[in-house]
Protein backbone atom coordinates (compact mmCIF):
# COMPACT_ATOMS: atom_id res chain seq x y z
CA UNK A 1 0.00 0.00 0.00
CA UNK A 2 2.32 2.59 -1.27
CA UNK A 3 -0.21 5.33 -1.51
CA UNK A 4 -3.78 5.50 -0.43
CA UNK A 5 -6.12 5.06 -3.32
CA UNK A 6 -9.46 3.78 -4.26
CA UNK A 7 -9.11 0.64 -6.24
CA UNK A 8 -11.25 -1.41 -8.52
CA UNK A 9 -12.45 -1.57 -12.07
CA UNK A 10 -12.94 2.14 -12.53
CA UNK A 11 -9.89 3.28 -10.61
CA UNK A 12 -6.38 3.43 -11.98
CA UNK A 13 -4.34 0.46 -10.80
CA UNK A 14 -1.88 1.18 -8.02
CA UNK A 15 1.72 0.21 -8.57
CA UNK A 16 1.96 -3.44 -7.56
CA UNK A 17 5.15 -3.00 -5.59
CA UNK A 18 6.20 0.35 -4.19
CA UNK A 19 9.64 1.31 -5.37
CA UNK A 20 10.71 2.10 -1.82
CA UNK A 21 10.28 -1.48 -0.67
CA UNK A 22 11.58 -4.72 -1.98
CA UNK A 23 9.08 -7.39 -2.95
CA UNK A 24 10.65 -9.70 -0.34
CA UNK A 25 9.35 -7.37 2.39
CA UNK A 26 5.77 -7.24 1.16
CA UNK A 27 2.65 -9.26 0.68
CA UNK A 28 1.91 -8.69 -2.97
CA UNK A 29 -1.27 -9.35 -4.94
CA UNK A 30 -0.95 -8.74 -8.65
CA UNK A 31 -4.23 -8.53 -10.50
CA UNK A 32 -5.58 -11.47 -8.54
CA UNK A 33 -9.02 -12.89 -9.16
CA UNK A 34 -10.66 -15.86 -7.52
CA UNK A 35 -13.88 -17.44 -8.65
CA UNK A 36 -15.71 -20.31 -6.98
CA UNK A 37 -17.31 -21.70 -10.09
CA UNK A 38 -19.55 -18.89 -11.24
CA UNK A 39 -19.34 -17.06 -7.91
CA UNK A 40 -16.92 -14.20 -7.49
CA UNK A 41 -14.54 -14.38 -4.55
CA UNK A 42 -12.32 -11.41 -5.33
CA UNK A 43 -11.71 -9.64 -8.61
CA UNK A 44 -8.59 -7.99 -10.01
CA UNK A 45 -7.02 -7.25 -6.67
CA UNK A 46 -3.70 -5.45 -6.76
CA UNK A 47 -2.14 -4.75 -3.39
CA UNK A 48 1.26 -4.47 -1.79
CA UNK A 49 0.98 -4.76 1.98
CA UNK A 50 3.92 -3.46 4.03
CA UNK A 51 4.86 -4.40 7.60
CA UNK A 52 2.62 -3.12 10.38
CA UNK A 53 -0.99 -3.86 11.16
CA UNK A 54 -3.26 -4.03 8.15
CA UNK A 55 -6.98 -4.44 8.56
CA UNK A 56 -9.09 -6.11 5.92
CA UNK A 57 -12.56 -4.71 6.39
CA UNK A 58 -15.81 -5.64 4.78
CA UNK A 59 -19.14 -7.31 5.35
CA UNK A 60 -19.71 -11.04 5.03
CA UNK A 61 -18.93 -12.14 1.49
CA UNK A 62 -16.72 -9.12 0.82
CA UNK A 63 -13.68 -11.28 0.08
CA UNK A 64 -11.65 -10.98 3.29
CA UNK A 65 -11.30 -14.69 3.94
CA UNK A 66 -10.70 -15.29 0.25
CA UNK A 67 -7.74 -12.90 0.31
CA UNK A 68 -6.39 -14.67 3.38
CA UNK A 69 -6.89 -18.06 1.77
CA UNK A 70 -5.00 -16.85 -1.29
CA UNK A 71 -2.13 -15.55 0.85
CA UNK A 72 -1.77 -18.88 2.59
CA UNK A 73 -2.29 -21.27 -0.31
CA UNK A 74 -5.55 -22.64 1.05
CA UNK A 75 -6.99 -21.19 -2.14
CA UNK A 76 -5.41 -20.83 -5.57
CA UNK A 77 -5.97 -17.74 -7.65
CA UNK A 78 -8.06 -18.12 -10.79
CA UNK A 79 -5.90 -15.38 -12.30
CA UNK A 80 -2.95 -13.25 -11.22
CA UNK A 81 -0.28 -14.03 -8.68
CA UNK A 82 0.29 -13.74 -4.95
CA UNK A 83 3.61 -13.66 -3.12
CA UNK A 84 4.26 -13.35 0.58
CA UNK A 85 7.73 -11.98 1.32
CA UNK A 86 8.65 -13.14 -2.17
CA UNK A 87 7.43 -16.70 -1.53
CA UNK A 88 4.64 -18.25 -3.56
CA UNK A 89 1.89 -19.78 -1.39
CA UNK A 90 2.21 -22.86 -3.60
CA UNK A 91 5.29 -23.72 -1.49
CA UNK A 92 3.95 -24.30 2.02
CA UNK A 93 7.24 -25.82 3.15
CA UNK A 94 8.86 -22.39 2.71
CA UNK A 95 5.86 -20.16 3.35
CA UNK A 96 4.89 -21.44 6.78
CA UNK A 97 8.37 -21.04 8.18
CA UNK A 98 7.67 -17.31 7.88
CA UNK A 99 3.90 -17.08 7.97
CA UNK A 100 1.36 -17.98 10.64
CA UNK A 101 -2.35 -18.07 9.92
CA UNK A 102 -4.99 -18.06 12.61
CA UNK A 103 -8.19 -19.02 10.83
CA UNK A 104 -11.65 -18.45 12.21
CA UNK A 105 -12.42 -22.15 11.96
CA UNK A 106 -13.26 -23.16 15.48
CA UNK A 107 -12.77 -26.93 15.13
CA UNK A 108 -10.05 -29.08 16.65
CA UNK A 109 -9.17 -32.72 16.04
CA UNK A 110 -11.54 -34.92 18.04
CA UNK A 111 -10.22 -35.64 21.50
CA UNK A 112 -7.27 -33.23 21.26
CA UNK A 113 -6.18 -31.35 24.34
CA UNK A 114 -4.68 -27.91 24.03
CA UNK A 115 -1.21 -29.36 24.46
CA UNK A 116 -1.62 -32.38 22.19
CA UNK A 117 -3.09 -30.17 19.48
CA UNK A 118 -0.08 -27.87 19.52
CA UNK A 119 2.47 -30.70 19.82
CA UNK A 120 0.88 -32.67 16.97
CA UNK A 121 0.88 -29.86 14.47
CA UNK A 122 4.18 -28.33 15.57
CA UNK A 123 5.84 -31.70 15.12
CA UNK A 124 4.97 -31.51 11.41
CA UNK A 125 7.63 -28.81 11.09
CA UNK A 126 10.17 -31.63 11.26
CA UNK A 127 12.16 -30.21 14.17
CA UNK A 128 11.59 -33.17 16.44
CA UNK A 129 9.11 -34.04 19.14
CA UNK A 130 11.22 -32.50 21.92
CA UNK A 131 11.21 -29.13 20.16
CA UNK A 132 7.47 -29.40 19.48
CA UNK A 133 6.74 -30.14 23.15
CA UNK A 134 8.95 -27.34 24.39
CA UNK A 135 7.53 -24.83 21.93
CA UNK A 136 3.97 -25.93 22.71
CA UNK A 137 4.57 -25.27 26.40
CA UNK A 138 5.98 -21.82 25.62
CA UNK A 139 3.02 -20.95 23.43
CA UNK A 140 0.51 -22.21 25.99
CA UNK A 141 2.16 -19.85 28.47
CA UNK A 142 2.15 -16.98 26.02
CA UNK A 143 -1.54 -17.27 25.23
CA UNK A 144 -2.50 -17.89 28.85
CA UNK A 145 -3.58 -21.51 28.56
CA UNK A 146 -1.01 -23.22 30.75
CA UNK A 147 -3.56 -24.24 33.36
CA UNK A 148 -5.96 -25.62 30.76
CA UNK A 149 -3.29 -27.26 28.60
CA UNK A 150 -4.32 -30.82 29.31
CA UNK A 151 -8.03 -30.32 29.01
CA UNK A 152 -9.84 -31.13 25.81
CA UNK A 153 -9.80 -28.18 23.44
CA UNK A 154 -13.41 -28.84 22.43
CA UNK A 155 -14.42 -28.00 26.00
CA UNK A 156 -12.65 -24.63 26.01
CA UNK A 157 -14.56 -21.38 25.92
CA UNK A 158 -14.63 -19.59 22.58
CA UNK A 159 -11.97 -17.16 23.74
CA UNK A 160 -9.69 -19.99 24.87
CA UNK A 161 -10.08 -21.78 21.57
CA UNK A 162 -9.26 -18.57 19.76
CA UNK A 163 -6.13 -18.15 21.86
CA UNK A 164 -5.11 -21.74 21.23
CA UNK A 165 -5.29 -21.21 17.48
CA UNK A 166 -3.38 -17.99 17.91
CA UNK A 167 -0.73 -19.95 19.81
CA UNK A 168 -0.30 -22.30 16.87
CA UNK A 169 -0.07 -19.40 14.43
CA UNK A 170 2.56 -17.67 16.55
CA UNK A 171 4.60 -20.76 17.29
CA UNK A 172 6.85 -20.51 14.27
CA UNK A 173 7.70 -16.92 15.24
CA UNK A 174 6.31 -15.76 11.89
CA UNK A 175 7.31 -12.64 10.03
CA UNK A 176 3.76 -12.43 8.69
CA UNK A 177 0.87 -13.12 11.02
CA UNK A 178 -2.52 -13.46 9.36
CA UNK A 179 -5.62 -13.54 11.52
CA UNK A 180 -9.19 -14.07 10.39
CA UNK A 181 -11.53 -12.24 12.79
CA UNK A 182 -9.05 -12.61 15.67
CA UNK A 183 -11.06 -10.72 18.27
CA UNK A 184 -14.29 -12.53 17.62
CA UNK A 185 -15.78 -13.94 20.80
CA UNK A 186 -13.06 -12.73 23.16
CA UNK A 187 -14.00 -11.21 26.48
CA UNK A 188 -12.72 -7.66 27.09
CA UNK A 189 -9.65 -8.80 29.01
CA UNK A 190 -8.65 -11.39 26.44
CA UNK A 191 -9.36 -8.88 23.70
CA UNK A 192 -7.03 -6.36 25.30
CA UNK A 193 -4.34 -9.04 25.67
CA UNK A 194 -4.64 -10.10 22.05
CA UNK A 195 -4.58 -6.52 20.84
CA UNK A 196 -1.45 -5.87 22.90
CA UNK A 197 0.15 -8.99 21.49
CA UNK A 198 -0.65 -7.97 17.91
CA UNK A 199 0.67 -4.48 18.48
CA UNK A 200 3.86 -5.93 19.91
CA UNK A 201 4.23 -8.10 16.82
CA UNK A 202 3.75 -5.10 14.56
CA UNK A 203 6.21 -2.97 16.55
CA UNK A 204 8.87 -5.57 15.98
CA UNK A 205 8.60 -5.00 12.25
CA UNK A 206 6.30 -7.85 11.39
CA UNK A 207 3.25 -7.92 9.18
CA UNK A 208 0.03 -8.38 11.06
CA UNK A 209 -2.87 -8.77 8.67
CA UNK A 210 -6.26 -9.14 10.28
CA UNK A 211 -9.80 -9.18 9.08
CA UNK A 212 -12.83 -7.92 10.83
CA UNK A 213 -16.30 -6.73 10.16
CA UNK A 214 -16.22 -4.90 13.47
CA UNK A 215 -14.91 -1.69 12.04
CA UNK A 216 -14.18 0.05 15.28
CA UNK A 217 -11.62 -2.61 16.21
CA UNK A 218 -9.78 -2.28 12.94
CA UNK A 219 -9.78 1.48 13.17
CA UNK A 220 -8.14 1.36 16.59
CA UNK A 221 -5.63 -1.31 15.68
CA UNK A 222 -4.60 -0.82 12.10
CA UNK A 223 -1.86 1.23 10.55
CA UNK A 224 -3.55 0.76 7.21
CA UNK A 225 -6.80 -0.67 5.95
CA UNK A 226 -8.06 -2.46 2.89
CA UNK A 227 -11.76 -1.92 2.41
CA UNK A 228 -13.52 -4.69 0.54
CA UNK A 229 -16.99 -5.08 -0.83
CA UNK A 230 -18.42 -7.82 -3.03
CA UNK A 231 -14.98 -9.06 -3.99
CA UNK A 232 -13.51 -5.71 -4.92
CA UNK A 233 -11.00 -3.55 -3.11
CA UNK A 234 -12.95 -0.37 -2.54
CA UNK A 235 -10.12 1.59 -0.97
CA UNK A 236 -6.81 0.96 0.70
CA UNK A 237 -4.13 2.84 2.56
CA UNK A 238 -3.73 4.84 5.75
CA UNK A 239 -7.21 5.51 7.08
CA UNK A 240 -6.84 9.29 7.23
CA UNK A 241 -5.27 9.34 3.82
CA UNK A 242 -8.01 7.20 2.39
CA UNK A 243 -10.43 9.68 3.77
CA UNK A 244 -8.52 12.53 2.23
CA UNK A 245 -8.81 10.92 -1.16
CA UNK A 246 -12.54 11.07 -1.01
CA UNK A 247 -13.11 14.68 -1.99
CA UNK A 248 -16.71 14.06 -2.78
CA UNK A 249 -17.46 12.53 0.58
CA UNK A 250 -18.95 15.21 2.87
CA UNK A 251 -16.66 15.64 5.83
CA UNK A 252 -18.24 16.11 9.22
CA UNK A 253 -16.36 18.39 11.59
CA UNK A 254 -17.04 18.95 15.26
CA UNK A 255 -16.30 22.47 16.44
CA UNK A 256 -16.16 23.09 20.16
CA UNK A 257 -16.55 26.77 21.02
CA UNK A 258 -18.14 29.23 23.43
CA UNK A 259 -20.73 30.52 20.94
CA UNK A 260 -21.91 27.55 18.88
CA UNK A 261 -25.23 29.00 17.67
CA UNK A 262 -23.70 32.25 16.47
CA UNK A 263 -20.82 30.58 14.70
CA UNK A 264 -23.03 27.85 13.22
CA UNK A 265 -25.28 30.47 11.64
CA UNK A 266 -22.27 32.16 10.01
CA UNK A 267 -20.86 28.91 8.69
CA UNK A 268 -24.15 27.76 7.22
CA UNK A 269 -23.81 30.31 4.45
CA UNK A 270 -20.47 28.97 3.21
CA UNK A 271 -20.21 27.23 -0.14
CA UNK A 272 -20.00 23.47 0.27
CA UNK A 273 -21.54 23.34 3.72
CA UNK A 274 -24.49 20.96 3.51
CA UNK A 275 -25.50 20.53 7.12
CA UNK A 276 -25.00 22.21 10.47
CA UNK A 277 -26.39 20.88 13.75
CA UNK A 278 -25.78 21.65 17.37
CA UNK A 279 -24.05 19.18 19.61
CA UNK A 280 -26.44 17.69 22.20
CA UNK A 281 -24.43 19.27 25.04
CA UNK A 282 -24.69 22.71 23.40
CA UNK A 283 -20.96 23.12 23.75
CA UNK A 284 -20.29 22.89 20.05
CA UNK A 285 -21.75 21.96 16.69
CA UNK A 286 -21.26 19.67 13.74
CA UNK A 287 -20.67 20.96 10.23
CA UNK A 288 -20.87 18.71 7.19
CA UNK A 289 -19.03 20.07 4.17
CA UNK A 290 -18.35 18.81 0.67
CA UNK A 291 -15.23 20.96 0.30
CA UNK A 292 -12.98 20.48 3.31
CA UNK A 293 -10.09 22.67 2.08
CA UNK A 294 -12.26 25.74 1.37
CA UNK A 295 -14.16 25.22 4.58
CA UNK A 296 -11.09 25.25 6.81
CA UNK A 297 -9.71 28.27 4.94
CA UNK A 298 -12.96 30.20 5.45
CA UNK A 299 -13.35 29.03 9.03
CA UNK A 300 -10.26 30.90 10.17
CA UNK A 301 -11.59 34.23 8.86
CA UNK A 302 -15.06 33.73 10.30
CA UNK A 303 -13.73 32.82 13.72
CA UNK A 304 -11.52 35.90 13.77
CA UNK A 305 -14.39 38.13 12.70
CA UNK A 306 -16.87 36.66 15.17
CA UNK A 307 -14.52 36.79 18.14
CA UNK A 308 -15.66 33.33 19.25
CA UNK A 309 -13.31 31.23 21.38
CA UNK A 310 -12.59 27.91 19.70
CA UNK A 311 -11.73 25.02 21.98
CA UNK A 312 -11.40 22.26 19.40
CA UNK A 313 -11.87 21.52 15.72
CA UNK A 314 -11.81 17.83 14.86
CA UNK A 315 -13.08 15.49 12.19
CA UNK A 316 -16.15 13.85 13.67
CA UNK A 317 -16.31 10.80 11.44
CA UNK A 318 -12.77 10.15 10.33
CA UNK A 319 -12.93 6.47 11.11
CA UNK A 320 -13.25 3.33 9.13
CA UNK A 321 -16.96 3.11 9.73
CA UNK A 322 -17.78 6.39 8.04
CA UNK A 323 -15.36 5.82 5.19
CA UNK A 324 -16.69 2.34 4.75
CA UNK A 325 -20.32 3.38 4.85
CA UNK A 326 -19.66 6.09 2.32
CA UNK A 327 -17.80 3.83 -0.05
CA UNK A 328 -20.27 0.98 0.18
CA UNK A 329 -23.32 3.18 -0.10
CA UNK A 330 -21.92 5.06 -3.04
CA UNK A 331 -21.63 2.16 -5.35
CA UNK A 332 -18.70 0.28 -3.86
CA UNK A 333 -16.61 -1.46 -6.43
CA UNK A 334 -14.25 1.42 -6.44
CA UNK A 335 -16.43 3.78 -8.36
CA UNK A 336 -14.43 6.95 -8.15
Amino acid at each position, binding site marked *: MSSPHRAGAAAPAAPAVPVSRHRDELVVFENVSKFYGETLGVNRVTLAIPPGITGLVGPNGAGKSTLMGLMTGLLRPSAGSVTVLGISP*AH*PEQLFRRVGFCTQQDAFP*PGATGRSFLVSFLSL*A*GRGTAWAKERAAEMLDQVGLREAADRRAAGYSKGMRQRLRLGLALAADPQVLILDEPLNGLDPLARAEVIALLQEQARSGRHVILSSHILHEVDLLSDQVVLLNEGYVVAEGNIQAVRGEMHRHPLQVLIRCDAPQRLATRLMGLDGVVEVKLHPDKGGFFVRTEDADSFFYALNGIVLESGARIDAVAPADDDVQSVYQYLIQNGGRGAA
Partner: protein
Amino acid sequence: MTTTELRALPWPLWREQFLALFRLELRKALFGKRALLVYGLAALVLLPPLLHLLLGRDGEHGDSLSSFTQGLANFFEFLVLRFAVFLGSVWIFMNLFRGDLLDRTLHYYLLAPIRREVLVAGKYAAGVAAGWLVFGTVTLLAFVLGFLSWGPGTLARQGYLIPWYLAIVLLAVVGYGAVFTLGGLLFRNPLLPAVAIWAVEAANPFLPGFLKQISVIHYLNALRPVPINEGPFAIVADPPPVWLAVLGLAALAAVLVWLAMLRARRLEIAYGGD
Protein backbone atom coordinates in the same frame (compact mmCIF):
# COMPACT_ATOMS: atom_id res chain seq x y z
CA MET B 1 16.62 -34.62 -12.02
CA THR B 2 20.26 -35.61 -11.63
CA THR B 3 21.67 -37.73 -8.81
CA THR B 4 23.40 -34.67 -7.36
CA GLU B 5 20.15 -32.74 -7.36
CA LEU B 6 18.38 -35.66 -5.74
CA ARG B 7 21.01 -35.85 -3.00
CA ALA B 8 20.69 -32.11 -2.40
CA LEU B 9 17.02 -32.45 -1.47
CA PRO B 10 16.21 -32.14 2.25
CA TRP B 11 15.63 -35.87 2.85
CA PRO B 12 16.31 -35.78 6.63
CA LEU B 13 13.69 -33.06 7.07
CA TRP B 14 11.17 -34.95 4.95
CA ARG B 15 11.86 -38.15 6.86
CA GLU B 16 11.29 -36.38 10.18
CA GLN B 17 8.07 -34.79 8.91
CA PHE B 18 6.91 -38.08 7.42
CA LEU B 19 7.44 -39.89 10.71
CA ALA B 20 5.68 -37.18 12.73
CA LEU B 21 2.72 -37.32 10.38
CA PHE B 22 2.75 -41.12 10.34
CA ARG B 23 2.54 -41.26 14.14
CA LEU B 24 -0.23 -38.67 14.24
CA GLU B 25 -2.30 -40.36 11.55
CA LEU B 26 -1.77 -43.88 12.85
CA ARG B 27 -3.05 -42.81 16.26
CA LYS B 28 -6.06 -41.27 14.57
CA ALA B 29 -6.72 -44.30 12.37
CA LEU B 30 -6.53 -46.75 15.27
CA PHE B 31 -8.06 -44.76 18.09
CA GLY B 32 -10.21 -42.11 16.40
CA LYS B 33 -13.98 -42.25 16.19
CA ARG B 34 -13.79 -43.41 12.58
CA ALA B 35 -11.86 -46.52 13.63
CA LEU B 36 -15.09 -47.97 15.07
CA LEU B 37 -16.36 -49.04 11.66
CA VAL B 38 -13.05 -50.75 10.89
CA TYR B 39 -13.19 -52.62 14.18
CA GLY B 40 -16.81 -53.54 13.43
CA LEU B 41 -15.72 -55.08 10.12
CA ALA B 42 -12.90 -56.89 11.89
CA ALA B 43 -15.31 -58.28 14.48
CA LEU B 44 -17.61 -59.55 11.72
CA VAL B 45 -14.69 -61.39 10.16
CA LEU B 46 -13.82 -63.05 13.44
CA LEU B 47 -17.34 -64.22 14.14
CA PRO B 48 -17.44 -67.35 11.90
CA PRO B 49 -14.13 -68.86 13.07
CA LEU B 50 -15.04 -68.09 16.69
CA LEU B 51 -18.38 -69.82 16.29
CA HIS B 52 -16.67 -72.71 14.56
CA LEU B 53 -14.23 -73.05 17.40
CA LEU B 54 -16.93 -72.87 20.05
CA LEU B 55 -19.59 -75.01 18.40
CA GLY B 56 -17.59 -77.47 16.30
CA ARG B 57 -15.46 -79.98 18.20
CA ASP B 58 -12.43 -81.85 17.09
CA GLY B 59 -13.38 -85.13 15.46
CA GLU B 60 -16.91 -83.98 14.68
CA HIS B 61 -16.13 -82.26 11.39
CA GLY B 62 -18.12 -83.80 8.66
CA ASP B 63 -15.48 -82.90 6.08
CA SER B 64 -11.81 -83.51 5.52
CA LEU B 65 -9.03 -81.12 6.48
CA SER B 66 -8.41 -80.33 2.83
CA SER B 67 -12.01 -79.31 2.28
CA PHE B 68 -11.89 -77.33 5.53
CA THR B 69 -8.77 -75.55 4.27
CA GLN B 70 -10.61 -74.89 1.02
CA GLY B 71 -13.46 -73.48 3.08
CA LEU B 72 -11.07 -71.21 4.93
CA ALA B 73 -9.63 -70.03 1.60
CA ASN B 74 -13.15 -69.16 0.40
CA PHE B 75 -13.88 -67.47 3.71
CA PHE B 76 -10.73 -65.38 3.32
CA GLU B 77 -11.47 -64.54 -0.31
CA PHE B 78 -15.04 -63.43 0.10
CA LEU B 79 -15.48 -62.29 3.69
CA VAL B 80 -12.01 -61.04 4.56
CA LEU B 81 -10.61 -59.76 1.27
CA ARG B 82 -13.56 -58.74 -0.86
CA PHE B 83 -15.73 -57.58 2.00
CA ALA B 84 -13.80 -56.46 5.08
CA VAL B 85 -10.48 -55.39 3.59
CA PHE B 86 -12.18 -53.72 0.64
CA LEU B 87 -14.71 -51.81 2.72
CA GLY B 88 -12.13 -51.10 5.42
CA SER B 89 -9.79 -49.64 2.82
CA VAL B 90 -12.58 -47.52 1.35
CA TRP B 91 -13.29 -46.14 4.80
CA ILE B 92 -9.70 -45.62 5.97
CA PHE B 93 -8.24 -44.13 2.80
CA MET B 94 -11.19 -42.12 1.54
CA ASN B 95 -11.20 -40.45 4.95
CA LEU B 96 -7.49 -39.60 4.99
CA PHE B 97 -8.27 -36.13 3.65
CA ARG B 98 -12.04 -36.17 3.49
CA GLY B 99 -12.35 -37.04 7.19
CA ASP B 100 -10.27 -34.01 8.14
CA LEU B 101 -12.29 -31.90 5.75
CA LEU B 102 -15.52 -33.05 7.40
CA ASP B 103 -14.02 -32.38 10.83
CA ARG B 104 -12.89 -28.97 9.53
CA THR B 105 -9.35 -29.65 10.64
CA LEU B 106 -7.64 -30.20 7.28
CA HIS B 107 -6.34 -26.63 7.22
CA TYR B 108 -4.07 -27.34 10.19
CA TYR B 109 -2.16 -29.79 7.99
CA LEU B 110 -2.11 -27.45 5.03
CA LEU B 111 -0.84 -24.57 7.17
CA ALA B 112 2.16 -26.54 8.42
CA PRO B 113 5.55 -26.05 6.75
CA ILE B 114 5.34 -29.40 5.03
CA ARG B 115 5.25 -30.31 1.37
CA ARG B 116 1.90 -31.62 0.22
CA GLU B 117 3.71 -34.66 -1.21
CA VAL B 118 5.06 -35.55 2.23
CA LEU B 119 1.57 -35.03 3.62
CA VAL B 120 0.10 -37.55 1.19
CA ALA B 121 2.93 -40.03 1.75
CA GLY B 122 2.61 -39.85 5.55
CA LYS B 123 -1.16 -40.19 5.56
CA TYR B 124 -1.09 -43.04 3.04
CA ALA B 125 1.59 -44.95 4.93
CA ALA B 126 -0.34 -44.56 8.19
CA GLY B 127 -3.46 -45.86 6.43
CA VAL B 128 -1.56 -48.89 5.14
CA ALA B 129 -0.12 -49.58 8.58
CA ALA B 130 -3.51 -49.24 10.28
CA GLY B 131 -5.30 -51.35 7.67
CA TRP B 132 -2.72 -54.11 7.79
CA LEU B 133 -2.55 -54.06 11.56
CA VAL B 134 -6.30 -54.51 11.94
CA PHE B 135 -7.06 -56.84 9.03
CA GLY B 136 -3.77 -58.70 9.29
CA THR B 137 -4.50 -59.37 12.94
CA VAL B 138 -8.01 -60.65 12.27
CA THR B 139 -6.73 -62.79 9.38
CA LEU B 140 -4.11 -64.27 11.67
CA LEU B 141 -6.66 -64.88 14.40
CA ALA B 142 -9.22 -66.35 12.00
CA PHE B 143 -6.76 -68.88 10.59
CA VAL B 144 -5.30 -69.74 13.99
CA LEU B 145 -8.77 -70.26 15.44
CA GLY B 146 -9.87 -72.22 12.36
CA PHE B 147 -6.92 -74.61 12.43
CA LEU B 148 -7.04 -74.84 16.21
CA SER B 149 -10.51 -76.29 15.94
CA TRP B 150 -8.72 -79.27 14.34
CA GLY B 151 -6.18 -79.39 17.12
CA PRO B 152 -2.77 -77.82 17.73
CA GLY B 153 -1.08 -80.30 15.43
CA THR B 154 -3.15 -79.12 12.49
CA LEU B 155 -2.21 -75.53 13.23
CA ALA B 156 1.46 -76.50 13.17
CA ARG B 157 1.06 -78.37 9.86
CA GLN B 158 -1.13 -75.81 8.06
CA GLY B 159 0.42 -72.73 9.64
CA TYR B 160 2.65 -72.18 6.62
CA LEU B 161 -0.40 -70.84 4.76
CA ILE B 162 -0.89 -67.92 7.13
CA PRO B 163 2.04 -65.72 5.97
CA TRP B 164 0.68 -65.93 2.42
CA TYR B 165 -2.68 -64.64 3.53
CA LEU B 166 -1.04 -61.90 5.59
CA ALA B 167 0.94 -60.88 2.51
CA ILE B 168 -2.26 -60.80 0.47
CA VAL B 169 -3.88 -58.54 3.08
CA LEU B 170 -0.85 -56.23 3.00
CA LEU B 171 -0.86 -56.02 -0.78
CA ALA B 172 -4.61 -55.50 -0.84
CA VAL B 173 -4.34 -52.60 1.61
CA VAL B 174 -1.45 -51.14 -0.42
CA GLY B 175 -3.40 -51.44 -3.68
CA TYR B 176 -6.86 -50.46 -2.54
CA GLY B 177 -5.32 -47.83 -0.28
CA ALA B 178 -3.68 -46.11 -3.23
CA VAL B 179 -6.90 -46.27 -5.26
CA PHE B 180 -9.02 -44.79 -2.49
CA THR B 181 -6.47 -42.19 -1.39
CA LEU B 182 -6.64 -40.79 -4.89
CA GLY B 183 -10.42 -41.26 -4.96
CA GLY B 184 -10.79 -39.35 -1.69
CA LEU B 185 -8.91 -36.42 -3.17
CA LEU B 186 -10.72 -36.45 -6.50
CA PHE B 187 -14.34 -36.96 -5.54
CA ARG B 188 -16.54 -34.92 -3.30
CA ASN B 189 -18.74 -37.96 -2.71
CA PRO B 190 -16.52 -41.04 -2.64
CA LEU B 191 -19.41 -43.51 -2.43
CA LEU B 192 -20.06 -43.73 -6.16
CA PRO B 193 -16.44 -44.40 -7.20
CA ALA B 194 -16.15 -46.93 -4.38
CA VAL B 195 -19.22 -48.80 -5.66
CA ALA B 196 -17.86 -48.66 -9.23
CA ILE B 197 -14.51 -50.11 -8.13
CA TRP B 198 -16.26 -52.74 -6.06
CA ALA B 199 -18.27 -53.73 -9.15
CA VAL B 200 -15.08 -54.06 -11.22
CA GLU B 201 -13.48 -56.17 -8.51
CA ALA B 202 -16.58 -58.35 -8.09
CA ALA B 203 -16.85 -58.87 -11.85
CA ASN B 204 -13.21 -59.89 -12.11
CA PRO B 205 -13.84 -63.66 -12.43
CA PHE B 206 -16.13 -63.06 -15.38
CA LEU B 207 -13.91 -60.61 -17.26
CA PRO B 208 -11.76 -61.67 -20.19
CA GLY B 209 -8.06 -62.06 -19.42
CA PHE B 210 -6.88 -58.64 -20.58
CA LEU B 211 -9.60 -56.84 -18.58
CA LYS B 212 -8.79 -58.79 -15.43
CA GLN B 213 -5.48 -56.93 -15.36
CA ILE B 214 -7.15 -53.64 -14.41
CA SER B 215 -8.32 -54.99 -11.06
CA VAL B 216 -6.37 -55.28 -7.84
CA ILE B 217 -7.84 -58.71 -7.10
CA HIS B 218 -6.24 -60.17 -10.24
CA TYR B 219 -2.76 -59.53 -8.84
CA LEU B 220 -3.72 -60.76 -5.39
CA ASN B 221 -4.87 -64.05 -6.93
CA ALA B 222 -1.25 -64.80 -7.73
CA LEU B 223 -0.47 -65.08 -4.03
CA ARG B 224 -3.33 -67.37 -3.06
CA PRO B 225 -1.81 -70.51 -1.51
CA VAL B 226 -5.11 -72.35 -2.00
CA PRO B 227 -6.98 -71.73 -5.27
CA ILE B 228 -10.67 -70.99 -4.97
CA ASN B 229 -13.56 -72.00 -7.14
CA GLU B 230 -15.18 -68.86 -8.54
CA GLY B 231 -18.20 -70.62 -9.97
CA PRO B 232 -19.25 -72.21 -13.28
CA PHE B 233 -19.37 -68.92 -15.21
CA ALA B 234 -15.92 -67.69 -14.28
CA ILE B 235 -13.44 -67.20 -17.10
CA VAL B 236 -10.31 -68.96 -16.00
CA ALA B 237 -7.08 -67.09 -16.57
CA ASP B 238 -3.65 -67.85 -15.23
CA PRO B 239 -2.67 -65.43 -12.49
CA PRO B 240 0.57 -63.54 -13.07
CA PRO B 241 3.76 -64.87 -11.45
CA VAL B 242 4.18 -63.83 -7.82
CA TRP B 243 7.07 -61.46 -8.51
CA LEU B 244 5.12 -59.73 -11.27
CA ALA B 245 2.03 -59.48 -9.09
CA VAL B 246 3.95 -57.92 -6.21
CA LEU B 247 5.95 -55.55 -8.37
CA GLY B 248 2.95 -54.74 -10.55
CA LEU B 249 0.77 -53.87 -7.59
CA ALA B 250 3.54 -51.86 -5.94
CA ALA B 251 4.08 -49.96 -9.19
CA LEU B 252 0.37 -49.34 -9.60
CA ALA B 253 0.15 -48.09 -6.00
CA ALA B 254 3.18 -45.83 -6.54
CA VAL B 255 1.62 -44.28 -9.65
CA LEU B 256 -1.71 -43.72 -7.91
CA VAL B 257 -0.07 -42.19 -4.84
CA TRP B 258 1.99 -39.94 -7.09
CA LEU B 259 -1.22 -38.81 -8.81
CA ALA B 260 -2.70 -38.19 -5.35
CA MET B 261 0.34 -36.03 -4.55
CA LEU B 262 -0.20 -34.00 -7.70
CA ARG B 263 -3.84 -33.56 -6.77
CA ALA B 264 -2.91 -32.57 -3.21
CA ARG B 265 -0.65 -29.82 -4.53
CA ARG B 266 -3.72 -28.22 -6.07
CA LEU B 267 -5.96 -28.91 -3.11
CA GLU B 268 -8.00 -25.95 -1.91
CA ILE B 269 -10.20 -25.62 1.12
CA ALA B 270 -12.87 -23.05 1.82
CA TYR B 271 -15.13 -24.15 4.62
CA GLY B 272 -17.23 -21.06 4.81
CA GLY B 273 -17.86 -17.58 3.50
CA ASP B 274 -16.10 -14.34 4.10
